[in-house]
């Protein structure tokens, strides 16, 4: 028997389960509020279809609905302080409130770093905006496809019907999603976003590396160098130990 990573604990799978049910519950609630008197009665299919399409689109426009991979890319937000808030490009010195940072670092290097980070941050924001446009397209197309397919005429609006509509919507959303995420434009945007995010991560690491010695902290490069050295020592054959290794004549041990 093997234990999996999250065994016994509330893992990401349980969070995903809760999130999915919460979404479906919201959908049910919206229908319940919109059509309170239609319980069990025949309802107008078009109005329900449109109402559901609005609800689904609202759901899709929520950033929390974005695929997990995209949400991972949001991590770069730690680098991004919108100009309207700070007016300055990100730098670790100010983030750490180290007022003395510029004098301690070479001024030129500091400016170059700030400019580089600023450029990357601006590009990162542009790419996020482009990705959001793709996401909007997916939401809109999914809604259109859904309205085109959702025919529930002469049907009582019960849980089974709503569940069926939900399945249709999932199908429409997957189709709209696939149509977008296979396009060259999307693939390039997403890849560049990953690349810029990585560059920002590396830039942040470089900044930490330049600050760490000021606080007497070990840097990542030093730890990596140490690991490499330890590996080298482990893999290299050990020299024969003690006297046996010595090529000189063995000393005779005096015996009493």
């Amino acid at each position, binding site marked *: 028997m*093997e234990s999996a990573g999250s065994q016994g604990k509330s893992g990401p799978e349980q969070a995903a389960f809760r999130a*999915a049910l919460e979404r479906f519950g919201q959908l049910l609630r919206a229908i319940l509020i919109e059509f309170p008197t239609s319980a069990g009665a025949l309802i107008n299919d078009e109005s329900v279809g449109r109402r559901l399409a609005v609800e689904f689109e609202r759901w899709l426009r929520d950033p929390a609905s974005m695929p997990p991979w995209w949400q991972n890319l949001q991590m770069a937000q730690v680098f991004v302080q919108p100009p309207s808030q700070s007016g300055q490009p990100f730098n670790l010195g100010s983030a750490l409130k180290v007022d003395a940072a510029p004098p301690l670092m070479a001024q030129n290097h500091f400016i170059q770093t700030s400019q580089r980070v600023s450029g990357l941050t601006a590009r990162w924001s542009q790419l996020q905006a482009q990705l959001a446009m793709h996401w909007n397209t997916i939401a809109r197309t999914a809604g259109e496809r859904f309205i085109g397919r959702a025919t529930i005429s002469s049907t009582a609006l019960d849980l089974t019907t709503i569940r069926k509509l939900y399945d249709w919507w999932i199908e429409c959303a997957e189709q709209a999603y696939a149509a977008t995420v296979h396009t060259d434009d999307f693939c390039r945007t997403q890849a560049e976003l990953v690349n810029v995010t990585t560059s920002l991560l590396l830039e942040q690491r470089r900044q930490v590396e330049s600050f760490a010695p000021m606080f007497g902290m070990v840097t990542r490069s030093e730890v990596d160098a140490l690991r490499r050295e330890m590996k080298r020592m482990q893999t290299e054959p050990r020299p024969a130990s003690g006297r046996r290794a010595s090529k000189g004549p063995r000393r005779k041990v005096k015996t009493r």
Partner: protein
Amino acid sequence: MSDSPGDLAAAWSEFNRRSIDAAMKLREASTAAVGCSLKTEVWRQDKVALYRYLPLPFIQAARAKPVLICFALVNRPYVLDLQPDRSLIRRLLAAGLEVYLIDWGRPDESDSDIGLCDYIERYMGACVQHVLKSHGSKALNLIGVCQGGTFSLCYCALNPQHVANLVTMVTPVDFQTPDDLLSKWARHLDMDSIRRAGNIPGAMLTGLFLSLAPFRLMHQKYVGLLDHVLDADEAERFVRMEKWIFDSPDQVAAATAQFVQWFYQENRLIHGSVELGGRRVNLQRIRQPVLNIYAKQDHIVPPSAVTALRRYIGSRDYTEKAVDTGHIGLYVSRTAQEHVPGLIASWIRARA
């Protein structure tokens, strides 16, 4: 949700009741262990281990060379032995085969320099040698799964003398077929920067795979649990699968960068330009019998990426088998369990 309450208020309370019931069943099942067959570690180097599965009692050993299974780096291999009724390994044991499994372990930052050559030639090579030595055999049966299948193809092309028969399951060969979404997403990545950023967190990889079909995998799958009352076995099976899906080890920076660049971006495997330890991987050198199994509804490795194999290998004894399931379904679905292990066992025995 097959009962029609006919009343939305009733529907709402029914939804709540089933949600709570499912949540409780899943919580009760959360301690379900994964991996069911007895195994013993017979070799280890760094974080890589080789396991030998103990033969099942009262099963007569088949007249066949030992079987070595090579799984992908991107997920844990216990999915092949998830629970007694969903275990490829157990069924191979029941067919009397000797089964070994390579477990790549859970790498950390100290492993970030490990490359594909280390994985395929050093670790996998050592595992093969260990099995051969233990059985006094010159060759074994190699089963490669997903990325592990790609590794197995490389190993087999470089060391054909050690592989008697090769089985590949959902194994990408042509990494640039038009329906391969992962390939399209990987095409423009700057793998040098990504490598320098260090190991890739497993959670990120899980997110990537879920993002291939996010609405089905992140929503519909869970809502579907409310369609009927879950029984305890069903809840346990679901929890085991979920644990496996979310249990991706971190990916070694160097090997991942090489894999994405060489295979996804440059499609080197079919062009014969993968080089490991100074030797070129030429698929034409694979002349032993090959059984290539794929899933018809695979959204991770599309069938077109798998079936390309027949065009590039030198083998004349080539069998292809399609199973009507998805990528993960090929490991655990009932359909796959009914057909795949029996097919592999009989195919191997016929070539003993």
